[in-house]
Structures are given as C-alpha cells and as structure tokens.
C-alpha cells in the first residue's frame, strides 16, 4: 500500500477540481462569463496530454537504447492515455467554443493543429497493429513515436502563435489567461487540476501496462 499514495492524490485532486472548478467563485468577464471554468478541464487536459506524450516519447527512446520490451509497453500505453486525454480535451474545447466563438469548430489554427496531432497518434496505433513480430513492432513504432513527437512541437506550440487570425486565448494578439487571472483565484484550481488529470492518465496507463505484462507472462 505504500506506493499507492499518488493514486489517492489523483482522486483527491480530480474531485477537488470537479467541485472547486464548478462551484468556486470565478472572475466575471465579458463574453467568457462562466465558461472560464472550462480552463480547469480543457486546458488542464491538454497539459496532461502533452506530459503523457512526452513520457511516451521518453520511454520510446529508452526502449531503442536498451531493447527491453517493458519500456515499449509503457510507451504505447502512455501514448494511448495521452490520446484519450487529447480527445477529451478537443471535445471540451468544442463545447466551450460553441458558447464563446459561436460554433464548435471554427477552423482556428490551434484547433486544426490539435486535430492533426491526434491523427498522428492514431496513425501510430494503426502502425503498431500492422506488424506481428513483437521486437520489430516495438522498434519501428518507437522510431515513429519520436519522429511524430518532433513533428508535433512546431504544430502545437509554434505555428498557432504565428497565425494572426487565431481566436485562441494567448494567440494572435489575444490576451492569454494570465491577463484575466487578476486575483490568481483560478491558479489555485488550475495547477492541482493539471497534476490531477496527469496522475489519472498515469494510473490508467499503469493498469494497462500491468495487464500487458501479465498477458506476456502467461504466454511464455
């Protein structure tokens, strides 16, 4: 039980996010109004996704350096959990955009980049399924994982900032959330929420990693 403290922490933080994020006082702002509460769900899920995908890439590098199949298990499950958080992030973002920008999908450059990023990771999963040999699958998909991650960085972090027509907060001359966040009320929920969602993703991934390892042990 001594290693389970972080699962308890994940539960507490996510519960706190749900309760505090929906109930606590939020700044009153034009257009945004109460929708600013989405900051605790949409933005934090994206943070969680980026952290998990980074972890997945790190494990892919570890696998390529050592050739131990256990690292590959971790890499793929982290990528899957990251893709799940990413899908949820895109849905929550679309719901938010429906109320603030007037339509769920307005071709904003960051939205497009997010959709492409998900496509890359779905392609990664398709690639994995197309190979049978375990070591080869791990090596080839590890290479694609690192390659895709390198391609994702300009996509998600650089290109949207250069687009002058972006609607996203923090892009294209729009103020970021820091400008709204005058009294730091939101930060109190925001940072715990990032940790909470990330830990949930890690928990999910670790369960699936263990099932994979048990399956492998049964096969041998």
């Amino acid at each position, binding site marked *: 039980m001594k290693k389970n403290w972080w699962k308890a922490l994940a539960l507490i933080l996510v519960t706190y996010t749900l309760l505090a994020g929906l109930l606590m006082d939020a700044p009153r702002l034009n257009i945004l109004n109460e929708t600013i509460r989405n900051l605790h769900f949409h933005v934090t899920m994206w943070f969680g996704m980026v952290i998990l995908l980074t972890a997945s890439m790190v494990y892919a590098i570890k696998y390529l350096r050592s050739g131990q199949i256990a690292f590959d298990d971790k890499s793929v499950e982290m990528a899957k959990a990251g893709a799940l958080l990413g899908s949820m992030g895109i849905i929550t973002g679309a719901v938010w955009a429906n109320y603030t920008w007037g339509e769920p999908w307005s071709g904003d450059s960051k939205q497009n980049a997010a959709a492409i990023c998900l496509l890359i990771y779905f*392609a990664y999963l398709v690639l994995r399924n197309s*190979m049978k040999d375990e070591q080869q699958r791990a090596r080839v998909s590890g290479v694609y994982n690192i*390659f895709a991650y390198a391609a994702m*960085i300009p996509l998600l972090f650089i290109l949207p900032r250069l687009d002058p027509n972006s609607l996203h907060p923090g892009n294209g001359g729009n103020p970021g959330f820091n400008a709204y966040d005058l009294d730091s009320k939101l930060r109190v929920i925001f940072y715990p929420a990032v940790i909470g969602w990330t830990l949930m993703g890690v928990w999910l991934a670790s369960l699936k990693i263990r099932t994979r390892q048990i399956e492998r042990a049964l096969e041998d």
Partner: protein
Amino acid sequence: MNKNQILSLIGKELLSEWRQRYALNGMILYLASTIFICYMSFGLKAGAIDAITWNALFWIILLFTAVNSVAKSFIQESRGRALYYYSIASPTEIIVSKIIYNALLLLVLALVGFVIYSFVMERANEEGATFDLLYFLIAIVLGSLGLASSLTMISGIASKAENSTSLMAVLSFPVILPIILMVIKLSKNAMDGLDRSVSTDEILILVAINAIVFSVSYLLFPYLWKS
C-alpha cells in the same frame, strides 16, 4: 560517415534511376495527367480559377506525386539488395544519400510540374499583383527538401510493416502538414507579389522544420535499419 560513400550511393541511385527510365517517365506522366485532369474537371476553358485555389491545387498535386515517388525508395527495394547495403555502408550514409537523392528527384518533378501547370492552368490574378518568380522557386526548393526528408524516413518506417503503400499515406500526411501549410503560405505571398520581407518568417520556419526533420531522421534511422 564518409563523404565519398554518400556521393557514390547517390551516384548509384541516379544511375539505377537512369537505367530504368520508365520509373522517372512514369512519375512525370503521372504529374502531367493529374494536372490535365484538374484542368479538365475545373472546366478552365470557361474561366480562370482564383489565385488561392490555383496555389493550393498545385501543392496538393505535388504532395501526391511526392508520396508516390518517394514511397518506392525503401518499399520497392528487394530484401537481398537491402542486405547488401547493410553490409557495405553505414545506416547514416544510406539515409543521408537517400534524402539527398529524393530531394533532387522531387525538385526535378516539382519544376517540371510547375512548367506544365502554369502552361495549362490559367489563374485570375488579384489586381496589381506581380508574380514573384524567385520567391516562388524558393518555396519549391524548400518544399521539395522538406517533403523529401520527411517522406524518406516515413517510407523507411512503412516498409517494415505489412500493407505498406496505404500505411505510407496514413503515416505521412499528418507529419507533412506543417511543411505544406508553410509552403502554401510562402508561395501565396510570392504569387501576390508581396514585399519580400513579409516572407522571411515563413522561410525561417520552413528551414527550421526541415532541420528538425532531417536531424531526427539522421538520429533515428540506424535503429530502424537494424531490424
């Protein structure tokens, strides 16, 4: 890594391409027919298309040609030949030579395509826009370099899997999108004859993306090659 090795590998690629000219001719014919299909299906006899459509269509045609022509660089190599390369050259030499060769190939295809395309496709220029040929050519060069380096690597990845030809498209399109978007923006600036300083950002980003893709391919290919 040895410079002479790379040069001789590129020479070998060029020679084998030249010996079986049907492949190269086939690619050029593919390009020409696609352009002609676009010409017919847009009904261009009736009137010209907008500059923005003209530009996007050009790059989409080039993208598909590039995917088709680069796909064969690893997928069509026979197993025996791959083993032979494995014994005589290091993986980094192979990937560098393949990327350079594919970049040359795509550059030739893009230039031929550009000539045919601007010959048949009439475009409606915006008022007072002067076509900046030099910057459009820069866009073509940077675009072919970027497409070559990312597609060569993806072709290497896809060749390890079953059903590689369709996988090639699935794996490459999302990765290539940033390059294509930047190139389209750059060439649109050139078409509208905007001041050249406007395009500096795009050129720098394209060079940076190319550098990232090239160095990642360079680092990762040895792992792929082992299997």
